[in-house]
């Protein structure tokens, strides 16, 4: 075996796919916890969310994790693309009739398509919020919930998010909300296969834990995207 087999072999590619995929699952949980703060109402909610946004963009440990997240997304996408190209090459002539629905789920066969949709979503999503927070013109929060002047004004990401899903402020708010929800459906399907598949590729979906992983994967694939999707719907409808 050549020394680079652990990087090049078909199985190694799957190990990397699993490792980055599972890391991104953990990232989703963290991101969701942050987003759920948008349910906190009033000035207190706004202050809380903006402080959180500041922490997320300035804390060195978070910074390190964020670079790991960007790298994982890129690696996951490139590795997935390489796997897809190889897999297409492995069957140069297609079947006239191929009844794949008889033996596998739609999501399991369309991970590349779903992944592409998600990559497009991530790019759009980061343009809408992440890039604005880092380099854009931001409204500032200058007073805390008690009305005291802040020593250092906070970037008001809360207002940016609220306005983004407010039809009075953003003419595309409805479209944005619908596309966001559809993207969460795509991530749900992606996770419905990806979660348990990651454990299988690492050789861990086996024996008594096998069933548990399958069930946990289904729950994760439904609950996490659903909670993400409820937030823009809530923000849109309270402001519509």
């Amino acid at each position, binding site marked *: *075996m050549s020394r680079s*087999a*652990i990087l090049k*072999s*078909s*199985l*190694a*590619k*799957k*190990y990397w796919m699993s490792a980055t995929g599972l890391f991104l699952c953990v990232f989703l949980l963290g991101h969701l916890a942050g987003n759920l703060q948008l349910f906190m109402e009033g000035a207190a909610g706004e202050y809380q969310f903006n402080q959180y946004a500041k922490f997320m963009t300035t804390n060195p440990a978070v910074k390190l994790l964020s670079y790991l997240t960007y790298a994982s997304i890129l690696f996951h996408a490139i590795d997935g693309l390489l*796997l897809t190209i*190889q*897999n297409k*090459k*492995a*069957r*140069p*002539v*297609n*079947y*006239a*009739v*191929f*009844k*794949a629905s*008889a*033996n*596998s*789920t739609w999501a*399991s*066969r369309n*991970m590349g398509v779903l992944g592409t949709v998600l990559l497009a979503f991530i790019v759009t999503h980061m343009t809408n919020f992440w890039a604005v927070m880092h380099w854009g013109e931001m409204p500032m929060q200058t007073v805390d919930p008690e009305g005291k002047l802040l020593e250092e004004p906070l970037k008001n990401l809360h207002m940016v998010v609220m306005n983004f899903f407010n039809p009075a402020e953003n003419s595309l708010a409805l479209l944005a909300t619908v596309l966001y929800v559809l993207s969460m459906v795509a991530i749900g399907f992606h996770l419905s*296969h990806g979660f*348990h*598949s990651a454990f*299988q*590729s*690492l*050789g*861990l*979906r*086996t*024996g008594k834990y*096998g069933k548990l992983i399958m069930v946990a994967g289904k729950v994760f694939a439904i609950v996490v995207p659903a909670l993400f999707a409820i937030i823009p719907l809530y923000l849109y409808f309270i402001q519509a």
Partner: protein
Amino acid sequence: MNLTLKVWRQNGANDKGRLESYQVKDISPDMSFLEMMDVLNDQIIVEGKDPVAFDHDCREGICGSCSMFINGEAHGPGRGITTCQLHMRTFNDGDTIYIEPWRAAAFPVIKDLVTDRSAFDRIIQAGGYVSVNTSGNTQDANALPIPKDDADKAFDAATCIGCGACVATCKNSSAMLFVSAKVSQLALLPQGDPERTTRALHMVEQMDKEGFGNCTNTGACEVECPKEISLENIARLNREYLRASVNPDK
């Protein structure tokens, strides 16, 4: 039963190949699919044309020769069976049946429905064996105590007949189910232990060299496998390879 057959005809590896239509009449529902193919070939021979080439041998589901992709599924509809065990009663009078060869870069078509599956042989040659001294004083296998659970799992893996349905049915033409069964049947037993590391590394290396695709865990192979080889074997191969890669000197 009267049927319309759309059969893949390809005169050698360099021919482009095409689906050709045939009508067969008075097919008994009790015939096996291969017997129906025999009727078709008799008909073609009488017409003075070239009969359809297809692989077959034992006709009792244990040799793994018959390799037809029927109506979009390896060995046709039905579970846990090979093409020779598929009966015509599965179909209805007047049906159109598509019959194609296994499709994979690693299984090139030799003629019509016959493909070259020697890639599997080369994977076995790369490590799917135990190097036992056969000088005449070989130890009785029963002298080695083996837990019942392990013996059962090894036996289940060993039922793989190497037909290639897993490759044919996988959207990626991956050979993981085959390779994992062949690795598992030995990895689970003490006889296979000494060569465990090199086996996993060499068999996977050969699998990749042959141009099979990557496993994306769709699970189609397990469903279509005539011997119902479990995906647990693929999980085991993933563990075996990871273990061997991390410590290749063991």
